[in-house]
């Protein structure tokens, strides 16, 4: 057998080049981007399993999708205690000291919280309110539900469920939260058309299940319909009762999907939490790209969720 050197040597060269190339590929090269890093700190009020956790998930998903492209670095903070304003204020202060580029917060009217927020605004930090805006505060962007429309929706649905005759107890989260106040206003506006429905009392559970349950029982003496204007109430009822409780004729609320599915709740306003998280990140990316947000207020979708339309709505 003769040696075909003309074949051997090119093959050797190709093999050598391939080996050298393979060798260089074994070394991991860091990916680079031309854009400067945009440090985003998201301070969520709590990490429950039905609402804020979904907002958090959608923010993280959007970060996965857009983070590398726009060089966005998102860090999410949650206070140890749910809706603990001092803890959230402390987190906020810490992030302001760290001079982050964007702060994503749920708006609240706490004076100290607002003072830190104002300082952040003065230092040029972009402030995005999610779910709840800050009243009379020059935030840069609001992404969330049109809470007045949501309150109107729950009012209309309650009237439908009670045939316009009910004594209603309203449990909200915490006084002074603009979103909750707007919902309440929307709810009241909706009931104007239903004189048979009377609001007996408006109470605040401080986003605490124990407080809510205490109110749940106390209010049953004067009301046959219960309206939970935030998610904690509905979730607490669902976790407390395996099936429908007869304390109230009608129970409606916000965002407690399992409560609706199990029949414990008659219906809830489903806020599009996924849209919220995605919109926040998309708008930050848009700001990096164009130097502005697409609007000052971006309303996300709301839907009325019942056991009848559960599969259909959740599929969407």
């Amino acid at each position: 057998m003769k040696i075909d050197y003309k074949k051997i040597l090119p093959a050797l060269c190709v093999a050598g080049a391939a080996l050298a190339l393979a060798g260089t590929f074994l070394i991991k090269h860091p990916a680079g981007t031309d854009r400067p890093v945009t440090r985003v700190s998201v301070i969520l009020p709590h990490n429950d399993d039905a609402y804020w956790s979904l907002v958090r998930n959608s923010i993280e998903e959007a970060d996965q999708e857009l983070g590398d492209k726009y060089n966005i670095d998102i860090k999410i903070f949650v206070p140890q205690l749910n809706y603990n304003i001092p803890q959230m204020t402390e987190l906020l202060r810490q992030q302001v000291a760290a001079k982050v580029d964007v702060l994503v917060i749920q708006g609240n009217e706490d004076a100290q919280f607002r003072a830190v927020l104002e300082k952040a605004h003065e230092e040029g930090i972009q402030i995005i309110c999610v779910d709840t805006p800050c009243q009379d505060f020059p935030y840069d962007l609001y992404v969330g539900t049109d809470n007045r429309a949501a309150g109107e929706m729950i009012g209309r649905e309650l009237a439908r469920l009670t045939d316009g005759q009910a004594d209603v107890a309203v449990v909200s989260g915490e006084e002074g939260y603009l979103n909750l106040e707007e919902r309440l206003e929307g709810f009241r506006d909706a009931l104007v058309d239903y004189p048979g429905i009377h609001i007996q009392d408006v109470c605040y559970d401080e986003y605490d299940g124990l407080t809510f349950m205490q109110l749940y029982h106390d209010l049953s003496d004067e009301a046959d319909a219960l309206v939970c204007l935030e998610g904690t109430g509905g979730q607490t009822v669902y976790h407390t009762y395996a099936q429908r409780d007869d304390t109230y004729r009608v129970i409606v609320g916000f965002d407690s999907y399992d409560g609706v599915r199990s029949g414990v709740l008659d219906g809830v306003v489903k806020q599009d939490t996924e849209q919220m998280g995605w919109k926040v990140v998309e708008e930050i990316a848009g700001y990096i790209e164009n130097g502005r947000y697409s609007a000052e207020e971006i309303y996300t979708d709301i839907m009325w969720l019942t056991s009848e339309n559960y599969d259909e709505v959740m599929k969407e």
Partner: protein
Amino acid sequence: MKHLHFLNTVGKKYTTGYVIMGFFVLVFLTISAFESFYVSDNYSRATSELVNVNKLESSVNSLNETVNMAYLYLSSEGIEAYDGAKDIVEKDLGVIRLQLEEEYIRELADTENTVETYLEQSSLLIGNLQKYLDSDRKDTAAYVALESNYANVQATYNYVNQMFQEAYTAKLADFSELEAELKILHRRMYVFQAVLILAMVIFCTVYLYKVIREVSASIRKMKKGVESIRGNVFLAEPIKVESNDEFEEFAEAFNGMIKLIQAQMNKIKENADVKERLAELEIENLRIYSELQKSHLNFLQSRINPHFLFNTLNMISSLARIENADKCADLMEITASFLRYNLDNISKTVTLEKEIENLKDYVAIQEYRYDGRYQYSFDISQECLGFQMPCMVLQPLVENSIQHGIAMMLEGGHVWIRAYGQEGDICLEVSDNGVGMTEARIQEIYEDFEKNNPSTTHIGLRNIYRRLKLFYSGRVKFQIENLHPGLEIMIRIYHEG
């Protein structure tokens, strides 16, 4: 099969093999060195980054001590030390900024910015404190503001410490991630190096195996070629080596040498054959010459004083004329002429015309002898009369026809003598209508022509044949043919050239 032109020696082929091996080893060593450099560089960088963070933390702590000293104890030393400590922090901060440019880590970026905030707040505090201390009237509002400043500074200092913890945690996580990456790299490198070594072993083994096999095949072919010439150089097979190296050149040279040897051997053989033929011819010539000498001697012995005989015959002829015996006188004169021809031309070349005249003398004598019982016919072509030939060629043939052919016939015996040209050749024919000859006899005559020791009969015919063959250098054909009746002897002398 084509070969690379530059791989035209065994040495180059082996060298190429070792270069290939060296190439693999070089790749192996380069990759290993690169990996080692990469690993140590990463470890070194990670360690150095941690050290830098630690330095910053230490310098911030030192700075905060000066702040505390200045604020809590209104120490002027504290205020003075502040600037120096701040410079150190800023310097360390610069290192961290460079580090962040190389590799961004959120926790470290937050720490760096928080330290910046701390520097701003502490600078404000120290500035305000200096103003407060420098003022003559200690203002309560300024004091409250200082308190607020200090609270802010310490709150930020707490954040800084928290940030450092987070930065350490992130760096350590990064470190352990790096470690995991390097482990994966190590594993990949082991696999890669194993593949590289395997590839080198396979490639070099195959390549060197082919080279060795080619060299070995070339040597085998050459050995076979050398062995093939041991018995007989003419049976040697050419060595076919196409290895594009010295073996191919050697084989070509060897084949050329064999061809040269074969050519030389052929020449030697041809020369030997020629010499052998020449020797045979020499021997034959010597033999013929010897026979001629012998024949000549015999002839001379038969010429017992021929001149005396010739003079005697002339004298008898004259006497016969005197005594009116004319026939006898004529016979004597013819006999004298015949003898004269014999005496004068025995060793000379004569023309055919002379030979025919002499033959006619002989025929005339025979007519006297047999009293006209036999007839003789001459048919001689004019163009042949000048043909040169040895003497006494035709006479013995005619004598042979008379004695062995027609001698026994009482009448009707006839001898024909013909000479004519044919295709440039000369044909001499003597035929008779006598008793002829058996084929066996004719064959025996032919065989006697070529023998050195012939039978004692037909010496005349054999002498004529030998003399003609010698005279015409073999360009003679002697043909004896039965005519039924009679016998024909035809001598054909081929045209020269």
